[in-house]
């Protein structure tokens, strides 16, 4: 290859205006044995650039299989269902409406009698309580004797 052609290419190379093809041409020229003596100085540059591409990655790439997301999601769904079930059960269990139906009487007379009976029962129990308090009046008497 003509020397001045190469020189022109070198000039372009240092101005970064060469194309990839021209740069390959330069690399080929400088890897040959008949490099013109004035251009010897560029030999290592192009020699290095050409050989540096052959270095290889020798390490390994530790790829882990992608996690099975479906299994994860099924377990999440299952636990949500269980939680909801337990929650619903306890909610119902503790909040059962107390029955407010005590029955009723259609006949006012019967109702009056029954009411009276019920009230009598209450007053009887109350009186029983009062009776058991009777002995307290003993204190009252002795108190009246002492403090006239």
């Amino acid at each position, binding site marked *: 290859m003509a020397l001045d052609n190469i020189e022109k290419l070198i000039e372009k*190379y*240092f*101005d*970064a*205006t060469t194309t*990839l093809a021209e*740069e*390959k041409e330069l690399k080929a020229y400088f890897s040959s044995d008949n490099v013109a003596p004035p251009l010897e*100085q*560029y*030999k*290592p*540059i192009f*020699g*290095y*650039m050409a*050989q*540096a*591409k*052959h*270095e*290889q*990655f*020798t*390490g*390994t*790439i*530790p*790829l882990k*299989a*992608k996690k099975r997301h479906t299994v994860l999601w099924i377990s999440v769904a299952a636990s949500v269902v269980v939680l909801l079930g337990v929650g619903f059960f306890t909610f119902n269990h503790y909040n059962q409406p107390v029955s407010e139906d005590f029955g009723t009487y259609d006949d006012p007379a019967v109702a009056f009698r029954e009411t009276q009976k019920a009230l009598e029962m209450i007053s009887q129990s109350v009186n029983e309580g009062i009776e058991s308090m009777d002995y307290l009046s003993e204190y009252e008497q002795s108190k009246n004797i002492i403090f006239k």
Partner: protein
Amino acid sequence: MNQKEFMQLVNPFKDKVFRMAKRLLVSTEEAEDATQEVLVKLWYKNDNLDEYKSIEAVAMTMTKNYCLDQLKSKRAGNMRIVHNNFTDREAGLQKQVEDKDTWQWVERIMNDLPEQQKLIVQMRDIEEMEFEEISAILGMNESAVRTALSRARKAIRETMTKTHHYGIG
């Protein structure tokens, strides 16, 4: 996408990612870590990969960002000084010793370039990528890439001729 398909997808460019990481991080071990990190991240993106036009460009951008982050962190800063002393024993093993020596100069000179210029030289001169791809990965416009590239190439030349004349390695 399973592991095998993913590996087929990344195989064409995983070395490229590694070389770029090594250019920035210098040490082989750190570059390997970075490559793993980037590819594993890519694997977890798996489902969205179809959305990208070029997965390679995505990987390169991720690598660039990851490595620059690493360099910023103190850890990498300390490591770098240590690893600067190592030279690459693998590259060009079969080639002539003399060639290897001069190549190492070039490599060392490149280590001293600013990060952005390193990236550009790496992608253009070593990986032989189009300016369009490079500017997309770096988020720069094409003329800025060209300017930086020209500056980097000239800087390499300048340092090379100096070493050539004075014979300092």
